[in-house]
């Protein structure tokens, strides 16, 4: 007892002193490097299309601030400039709670309720769904959104949503067990100080079971987060999960992960759900020129694959692998003449342009460098000092949002700079210079969402969806029910913007689906 007591005293003393340790002083930088990686991920995401349903007109308790916009091109000796102005009409989107309006048709199927489905005008609509269970939204190859609920027991139910009608899908569950055994794995992966060379690793056969439903040509894997875990000797651990491939109605990708918590090494196989055959489409590819490789993924066409690869972990770039010819291609290298001493942002794969900054602690400038002409064009100059993020100086006055666009904060105004068009600068009237403003481009880089959040909250109090082709913007204020917390905003497809929320008291989950018709 004494021994235990003394142990306990030591432990208490350790905990007390640990509790008095200092706290971090810096905030989280949504840094340029983060955004760069975001861009890479978005670029590799499967392309999604959308079927535009014939929305029925419902009781409109939500009135949107439809936004007209004018775009004015101004002459400039070096750069063109544009101004986008958002005109609001002074009404507020009232986010509905679970109670249905009296004259609204009952739209509860299983555990899912369609609270409202509102056509705001011929080009914009909003739908509000809720469930007491886990709730998510999928988009099929045809573009039709599918709601998906999952109970705590893992029972998954899918609901189609077309023409404003919610329909529970009665789908049979299929199961298949297959054996996966890779012959060899390419590459060395180093991550967080841990390194692994898998090229000589003898892997055991791994038995995997997949459970799915078939909806037309669509494969709906029941638990998208499910994994199978296995051991390889005493050192390595492995996991597998399944991933659908766009356009494939009977083949799925088996993502084979080694030492997932350390190296994060992934290698893909293909599983034919009809025949049970497992194949390795990368088995004949020569990766010797790319000793460090990760994030291998097969495209839905089954003819190409992509990966992040390089000579070391710090030198990764996106590569494309032709599975028919075995040829590996990467973005062209630059000549090294860029006078950047700070941040460099490469354009999407294949581009011959770079964005870079130079500067001192007193000021910094941003340029576009064209490798074809070997000339730089000045975009902007800041007179504010850099903030340091690790060993990387980061300007606090611009933000890379991917796809060749950056947001530039200047005094009390915000501008969108299109690097693909030589730095075309569009002033975003009405968007405040604030840490509470988030910018998120869709995968097709056609619509930019601008979310203005409440202070110290993830709730979006103003939402702007800016069509970059037409420069037309939907800009509206929002009023959330009390006790509701929003925590996820994302593009589900090119024209579908989703906000997920939860009632903190009842734990009811919500999906707010905004659909734009071009």
């Amino acid at each position, binding site marked *: 007892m004494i021994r235990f007591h003394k142990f306990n005293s030591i432990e208490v003393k350790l905990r007390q002193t*640990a509790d008095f340790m200092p*706290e971090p002083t810096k905030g*989280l930088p949504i840094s340029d490097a983060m955004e760069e990686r975001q861009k890479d991920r978005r670029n590799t995401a499967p392309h999604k299309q959308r079927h535009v349903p014939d929305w029925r007109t419902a009781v409109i308790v939500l009135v949107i601030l439809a936004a007209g916009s004018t775009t004015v091109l101004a002459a400039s000796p070096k750069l063109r400039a544009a101004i986008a102005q958002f005109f609001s009409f002074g009404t507020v989107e009232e986010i509905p709670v679970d109670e249905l309006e009296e004259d609204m048709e009952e739209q509860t199927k299983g555990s899912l309720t369609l609270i409202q489905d509102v056509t705001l005008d011929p080009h914009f609509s909003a739908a509000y769904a809720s469930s007491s269970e886990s709730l998510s939204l999928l988009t099929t190859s045809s573009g039709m959104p599918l709601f998906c609920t999952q109970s705590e027991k893992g029972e998954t139910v899918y609901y189609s949503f077309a023409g404003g009608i919610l329909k529970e899908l009665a789908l049979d569950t299929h199961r298949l067990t297959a054996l996966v055994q890779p012959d060899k794995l390419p590459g060395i992966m180093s991550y967080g100080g841990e390194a692994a060379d898998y090229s000589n690793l003898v892997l055991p056969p791994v038995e995997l079971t997949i459970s799915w439903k078939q909806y037309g040509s669509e494969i709906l894997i029941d638990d998208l987060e499910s994994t199978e875990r296995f051991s390889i000797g005493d050192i390595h651990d492995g996991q597998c999960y399944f991933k659908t491939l766009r356009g494939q109605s009977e083949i799925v990708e088996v993502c084979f992960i080694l030492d*997932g918590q350390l190296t994060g090494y992934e290698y893909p196989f293909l599983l034919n759900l009809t025949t049970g055959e497992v194949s390795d489409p990368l088995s004949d590819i020569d990766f010797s020129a790319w000793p460090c490789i990760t994030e291998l993924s097969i495209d839905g066409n089954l003819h190409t694959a992509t990966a992040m690869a390089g000579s070391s972990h710090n030198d990764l770039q996106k590569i494309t692998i032709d599975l028919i010819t075995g040829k590996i291609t990467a973005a062209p290298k630059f000549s090294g003449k860029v006078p950047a001493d700070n941040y460099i942002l490469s354009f999407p794969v294949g581009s011959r342009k770079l964005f870079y900054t130079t500067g001192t602690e007193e000021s910094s400038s941003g340029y576009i460098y064209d490798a074809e002409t070997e000339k730089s064009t000045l975009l902007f100059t800041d007179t504010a000092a850099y903030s340091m993020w690790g060993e990387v100086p980061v300007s606090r006055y611009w933000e890379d949002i991917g796809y060749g666009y950056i947001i530039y904060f200047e005094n009390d105004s915000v501008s969108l700079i299109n690097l693909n068009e030589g730095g075309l600068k569009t002033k975003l009237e009405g968007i405040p210079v604030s840490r509470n403003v*988030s910018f998120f481009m869709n995968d097709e880089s056609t619509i930019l969402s601008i979310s203005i959040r409440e202070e110290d909250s993830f709730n979006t109090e103003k939402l702007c969806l800016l069509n970059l082709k037409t420069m037309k913007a939907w800009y509206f204020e929002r009023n959330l029910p009390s006790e509701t917390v929003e925590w996820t905003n994302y593009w589900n497809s090119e024209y579908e913007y989703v906000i997920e929320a939860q009632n903190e008291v009842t734990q009811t989950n919500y999906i707010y689906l905004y659909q734009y018709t071009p």
Partner: protein
Amino acid sequence: MKLLPKIAKGDLYALELLYEQQKIKVYRLILSITGDSFLAEDVTQETFLRVQNQAQSYRKDISETAWIAAIARNLAYDSLRRRRYETVGMETIPDNAFTVQNVDEQSNVEFLDLIKELSQQEKDVICLRIVADLSWKEIGQITGQSADASRKRYTRSLEKLRSHM
């Protein structure tokens, strides 16, 4: 709410939320290892960058907290290896870990002083248990030991501290 699946989908709100939830534990774990409050600030931020970049590879067989702690621990060791410009085995803990190296006068690092008599491996398990507040199973997953071996090492470490008091 599980945040990593959302972060994997590119949700920066979720990343910020996760940061707010985990930043103190992560920072203190890194500070324990590096003994450098300035370096710990940078490594903390790098940890969350890694979390975002690697969120896709996160699987549910380890808790989010433990997964983030594993990343923070590895990066902290990495930062010390770089500082010493030494080549050390990847599995070893740098011998300059868990020592006060660079902190401002206001920072309280008495914790490091208390565990200074322990071996690097013992300090490692103490920090993962006390500072990161992980379970034996999680500590075992991170250090490559069984849960029971982690618990035994922790107990031995406390015994050693007791004998020095």
